[in-house]
């Protein structure tokens, strides 16, 4: 059942990220739903599930991107794992803490990818950070905050996390 749900999530993320989100992009920046999904799976299902789903999301989304295979696999998997770990350490998870956490991990993964980009100089790296990485991190944080708030209105999230 978990496997099927994970598979559906991964397969649905591709058209949402590649076809629908470009319509909702702000200044050509769209949120990374793969990162958000990996973090939520880690938060609610634990480290192992977060890692596996994050790796799968990173890999499949990367097949539909011009970026090199490998790095986004690791960043998404790492975010799922980290969310699972932090979810156990924090006693009270709120929509704000989820948003801030997502902003931080999105910023970290964006900086890592910018720093490992080929054929660009330092000035272009900083330009990329200002124009893409930072706005995307803010976007990811906002989407995470909104999604957690919506879920908390519909479900008893604290009980869901302790079950």
């Amino acid at each position, binding site marked *: 059942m978990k496997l099927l749900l994970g598979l559906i999530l*991964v*397969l*649905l993320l*591709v*058209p*949402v*990220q*590649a*076809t*629908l989100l470009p319509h909702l992009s702000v200044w*050509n*920046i*769209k949120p*990374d739903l793969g990162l958000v999904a990996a973090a939520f799976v880690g*938060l*609610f*299902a*634990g*480290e*192992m599930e*977060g*890692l596996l789903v994050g*790796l799968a999301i990173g*890999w*499949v*989304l*990367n*097949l*539909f*991107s*011009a*970026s*090199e*295979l*490998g790095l*986004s*696999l*690791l960043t998404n*998997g*790492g975010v799922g*794992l980290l969310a*699972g*770990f932090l*979810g*156990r350490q924090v*006693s009270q*998870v709120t929509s704000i803490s989820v948003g801030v956490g997502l902003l931080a991990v999105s910023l970290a993964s964006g900086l890592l*990818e910018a720093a490992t980009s*080929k*054929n*660009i100089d330092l000035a272009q790296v900083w*330009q*990329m950070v200002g*124009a*893409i990485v930072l706005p*995307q991190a803010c976007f990811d944080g906002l989407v995470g905050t909104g999604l957690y708030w919506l879920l908390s209105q519909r479900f008893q999230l*604290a009980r869901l*996390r*302790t*079950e």
Partner: protein
Amino acid sequence: MRMANSRSSSGSRRRAFACFALLLAAVFLFHGEIQGLLQYLGGPVGHVASIPLEVIASIDTGIANRWQRYVVLQGVWDENQQLRKDIEWLRGQNSQLHELAAATERLTALLQFKEQALPTMVAARVIGRDTTNRYQALILNKGERDGIKPDMGVITPAGVVGRIVKTTGASSVVLLVTDPNNAIAGLIQRTRDEGVVEGTQQGRAQLKYLPLLSTLQHGDRVVTSGLIGDFPRGLAIGTIMHIDKQEGALFQSAELMLEVDVGRVEEVLVIQASSGQSTKAAREVDPPGKP
């Protein structure tokens, strides 16, 4: 309160961290091999993942078409009038070009030039955009099973769009000409000066490494030079908008206005074999002297 995920034992937690550490080490130590393996496994996975992508893209296109046809009708009359004028002008151009084509044909026959084979192309539909924000790329609904391979050129009838950088069984990714990671050999049609067309961070394109003595002007057309890559010679890329000539620099560069609006492309043509290659391929199939 029992904490989140407390059910996951410390053993499972340790296993998760160990798996991640192992994967991290593998990716950094065997980067090329891991990439190759992921790309190989990605063929069938991408095939499955492209099914919902195509379905959603079809729905998205359907909604967009209905919106364009029935809802956004403002300015259609003005546009219609302008298009009628354009058609009149193009008819005139067409007849002139027919004359020129006939003349060229006669001269070619006179010079006994071998007829140049047209490049082989595959039509494909755009079903999505790059899943990240860092690259300017399109996703096409044709892939390896349709004979598409990395580095093939992608065009529209108006001009160059980009080149294929990644393929799965049923889809492929096109890196746009406006992406800074893309480089295409270009030629100024009037002066015959060659340079490299590269994308910029701002989503535009520039022609770089032009000789300082080049007499390029605002409005000069830039086409593919056909020297490097899979683009045949003479495909339109863009028009020079701004010339950047700095004192002490070894080269000059120019900003281009692209022929194709890459933000609105819906259908493209993938060049499977450029004219040179297709002529060569034809020669291999039909050796000279064969009846």
